[in-house]
């Protein structure tokens, strides 16, 4: 059977339209099914005893009183469970990546506040927490390792004594005479250190799982709140040294992930080891304090950037030294995103030379995990640097960008990291965003406001998103499209949609390419016993990869149905068309067969099939996609800063983006909006704070401030739709972009507002106290 997909769907009725979501009805009526809604017979409940010290030896651990408590079924420590561990590694980064030493429960010492020390399993969660209260732990404190810059060179005070170093991974500087020559001969050289602080992913549904080792069948069943059921299965097969086919992982509705729920973490491992020992199903639902303290963190990193610019304002070279704080137990591997930060650092600009070095450093803090655009320090560092340099050169930041930006005539464009942009539109999106916000008018308004003593600012951020990265496990996706004997369609995928609306968008693709009504397509995902092995949902990959697979499987079923009808009706295949589940002779609608009739032939009337045709009406397609599918966007933010209070108000927020062919524009805009607001939150409100002893200070939603509707502006969208050349649907991934582009747009806007005071903004967050401190310092410097 041909695998060549037609360029356009038979009838593009659904792709490109804002089809209302098929997920919504159950979620809106309280019938979504999330991890805490899972109840199975004999279910027990777990709670964790956690370290309240950042670093120290455990001198005493007494769990006897907890074990005695009525209703407590088990209390386990490292001595009980850690021996059940075999291999520890994540498929995405592979067996040979650097890893922190692994342990389910703390064994002999603790390495961050929140590290699990013991698990209490009881009849109810209330009793499990009572049990935790009865566990006694004494420590011999050690000085915590908290500053990654100090820790990187420290071999005395180390987070993981087994390793003898705090460096988790490293990209060394390469000797680059061409780069140094460019700096030596440049008209201008600028240097700045730009940082971002520790953010948290904060899915509204915390982590959690139910795990049940059946000692009779010797099988493990896991109900997970995950972005990747197959990774959970593969991971636990290795971890327990049992075959993958003895493990079934399912996920249902998942209340957000943002990167936090891709990989199994230590609580998951502990619960699995506990059920293996106990043979009873165990549920663990993280509470919010645990999530804010111990789940994972992100973004704690900085870059020292040197930029060489010629006399015409064209960038000649950039040199970057990047330091990441990866905490104590990061995932995956060493938790570093540096390879992609390096790869994308020159972003949408024609910068011919790049130098890059990185150290990812362990500290006694909550481990780093992916968070929407994990590598986005490149956009933060570059875009803030663009504004700083533009101001030094006396150029408007928009003008400086326009002098350097990749334009359509530059394509294909090869970056200094040998990435080839085949189809990107940074110039077009920047112009569109400038137009949407009416940049010139804002500058005039800003002028007037300054005359009145008000501080308005505008900030730009432009980036290229390496969506749908096709490496290793991520290089392929799979879909099964099955027409059942009644003529209705099952779409079975290895995705793990958790807010991305795949139940709708994937059905749109199948409906168009198979030629059925969208309501006749049922979407099934998240069950490793049903769905073929797959990478799951993350990395802005679903449109390209899952969409590619769904499209290809649909096309194959479509072609087979056409062949069956052609044979049955003695018509030429090219004269047939299918729409709404009816295959008819073009121009003679009375000569037709329904998909139900075709299915009956395919499964029952097999003697009527074309000679040699395999019965049945289904196809499984595995789509292998390109290494990269580039999408891009420009964000522009305008703010007013109240210099008396330090309060920043966002006036307007404009995004112009190009994600190729949009399957569902409503969903695209929703993804942009969610990401933008996470970025705004990160700059203005969110900050996970540790004190000097490594104690987290932001342990509730009263301290870790997630933005609410009252703080968020209306977001305005513009679209440039350039089909991706690398996949038949022309899609480009975009799920992470909003969170990548927004932080520097906000920072630059605040910096622009404060520029008349001589203030330069290189650090975040920019809460009222931080901004007020900048204003005070500037005033002190001038008086």
């Amino acid at each position, binding site marked *: 059977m041909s695998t060549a997909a037609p360029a356009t769907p038979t009838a593009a009725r659904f792709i490109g339209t*804002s089809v*209302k*979501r098929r*997920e*919504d*009805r*159950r*979620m*809106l*009526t*309280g*019938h*979504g*099914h*999330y991890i*805490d*809604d899972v109840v199975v017979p004999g279910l027990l409940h777990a709670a964790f005893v956690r370290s309240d010290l950042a670093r120290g030896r455990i001198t005493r651990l007494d769990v006897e009183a907890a074990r005695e408590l009525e209703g407590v079924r088990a209390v386990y420590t490292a001595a009980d469970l850690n021996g059940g561990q075999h291999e520890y590694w994540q498929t995405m980064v592979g067996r040979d990546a650097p890893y922190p030493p692994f342990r389910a429960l703390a064994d002999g010492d603790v390495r961050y506040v929140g590290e699990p020390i013991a698990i209490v399993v009881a009849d109810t969660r*209330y009793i499990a927490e009572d049990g935790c209260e009865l566990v006694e732990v004494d420590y011999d404190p050690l000085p915590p390792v908290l500053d990654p810059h100090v820790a990187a060179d420290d071999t005395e005070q180390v987070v993981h004594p087994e390793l003898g170093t705090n460096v988790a991974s490293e990209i060394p500087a390469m000797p680059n005479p061409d780069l140094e020559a460019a700096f030596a001969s440049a008209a201008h050289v600028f240097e700045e250190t730009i940082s971002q602080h520790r953010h948290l992913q*904060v*899915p*509204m*549904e*915390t982590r959690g799982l139910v795990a049940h080792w059946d000692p009779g069948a010797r099988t493990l069943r896991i109900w997970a709140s995950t972005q990747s059921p197959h990774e959970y299965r593969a991971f636990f097969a290795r971890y327990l040294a049992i075959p993958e086919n003895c493990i079934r992982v399912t996920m249902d*509705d*998942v*209340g*957000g992930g*943002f990167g936090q729920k891709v990989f199994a973490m230590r609580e998951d491992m502990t619960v699995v080891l506990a059920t293996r020992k106990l043979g009873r199903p165990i549920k663990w639902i993280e*509470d*919010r304090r645990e999530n804010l303290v111990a789940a994972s963190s992100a973004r704690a990193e900085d870059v020292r950037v040197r930029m060489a610019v010629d006399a015409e304002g064209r960038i000649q070279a950039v040199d970057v030294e990047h330091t990441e704080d990866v905490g104590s137990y990061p995932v995956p591997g060493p938790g570093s995103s540096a390879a992609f930060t390096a790869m994308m650092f020159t972003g949408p600009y024609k910068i011919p030379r790049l130098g890059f070095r990185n150290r990812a450093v362990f500290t006694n803090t909550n481990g780093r995990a992916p968070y929407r655009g994990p590598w986005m320090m490149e956009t933060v560092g570059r875009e803030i640097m663009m504004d700083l340099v533009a101001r030094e050169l006396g150029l408007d930041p928009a003008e400086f960008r326009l002098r350097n930006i990749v334009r359509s005539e530059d394509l294909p464009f090869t970056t200094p990291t040998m990435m080839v942009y085949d189809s990107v539109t940074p110039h077009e999106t920047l112009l569109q965003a400038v137009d949407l916000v009416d940049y010139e008018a804002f500058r005039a308004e800003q002028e007037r406001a300054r005359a009145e003593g008000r501080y308005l600012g505008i900030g730009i951020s432009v980036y290229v998103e390496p969506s749908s990265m096709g490496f290793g496990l991520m290089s392929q996706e799979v879909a099964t499209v099955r027409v059942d004997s009644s003529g209705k369609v099952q779409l079975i995928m290895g995705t793990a949609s*958790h*807010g*991305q*609306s795949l139940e709708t968008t994937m059905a749109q693709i199948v409906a168009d390419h198979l030629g059925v009504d969208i309501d006749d397509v049922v979407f099934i995902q998240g069950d490793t016993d049903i769905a073929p092995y797959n990478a799951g949902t993350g990395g802005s990959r679903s449109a390209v990869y899952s969409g590619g697979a769904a499209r290809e499987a649909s096309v194959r079923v479509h072609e087979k149905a056409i062949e069956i009808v052609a044979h049955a009706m003695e018509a030429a295949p090219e004269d047939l068309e299918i729409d709404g589940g009816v295959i008819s002779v073009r121009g003679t609608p009375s000569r037709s067969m329904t998909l139900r009739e075709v299915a009956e032939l395919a499964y029952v009337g097999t003697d009527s099939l074309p000679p040699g045709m395999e019965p049945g009406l289904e196809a499984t397609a595995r789509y292998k996609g390109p290494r990269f599918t580039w999408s891009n966007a420009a964000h522009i933010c305008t703010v007013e800063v109240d210099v008396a209070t330090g309060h920043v108000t966002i006036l307007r927020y404009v995004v112009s983006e190009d994600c190729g062919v949009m399957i569902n524009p*409503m*969903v695209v*805009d*929703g993804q942009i*909006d*969610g*990401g*933008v*607001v*996470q970025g705004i939150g990160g700059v203005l409100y969110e900050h996970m704070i540790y004190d000097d002893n490594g104690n987290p200070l932001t342990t*509730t*939603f*009263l301290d870790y401030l*997630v933005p*609410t*509707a*009252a*703080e*968020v502006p*209306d*977001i305005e969208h513009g679209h440039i739709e350039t089909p991706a050349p690398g996949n038949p649907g022309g899609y480009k991934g975009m799920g992470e972009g*909003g969170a990548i582009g927004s932080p520097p747009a906000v920072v630059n806007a605040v910096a622009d507002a404060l520029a008349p005071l001589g203030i330069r903004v290189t650090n975040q967050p920019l809460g009222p106290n931080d901004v007020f401190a900048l204003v005070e310092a500037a005033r002190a410097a001038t008086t």
Partner: protein
Amino acid sequence: MNEVPVTVTVNDERYRAFVEPRKTLADFLREDCVLTGTHLGCEHGVCGACTVLIDGDAVRSCLMFAVQADGAEVVTIEGLAPPGELGPVQEAFREEHGLQCGFCTPGFVVSVHAFLAANPRPSRTEIREALSGNLCRCTGYQGIVRAVERVAAGIAGAPTAAPTATGDEAAS
């Protein structure tokens, strides 16, 4: 631990149970009534995911003990429209893409019911203020604000603008 009897009317149905005095109303609804649409996002009164109507008022069920609801009329997300149907607020959330992962959604929908019952013609600023007691991490609130405006403008595809689903009847 000592258990005490409680009787709570939830979505017009009477539930009697023996519960520990420390059991939250949220856990009572989720476990004893098996109404799992009420979600827990923080259990400390900030995120609003657990919002239900008690005698018509929006209340955070994580901050209340089940015994405190003894004798009360509670409406949860499951009771805002007849089974299988969407009320006007729910319909507007769907039309305006006011939800992605759906975890925060029940709390928002219930809060919006109470808000629009008290203020059927709010301004956009009032809407944003009213929604500020609920957290959503997915949508950036754009579709949620639009959804509330849509209901207030009476264009949710429902006969009336005001949320007159069973929730209000049960609460009155």
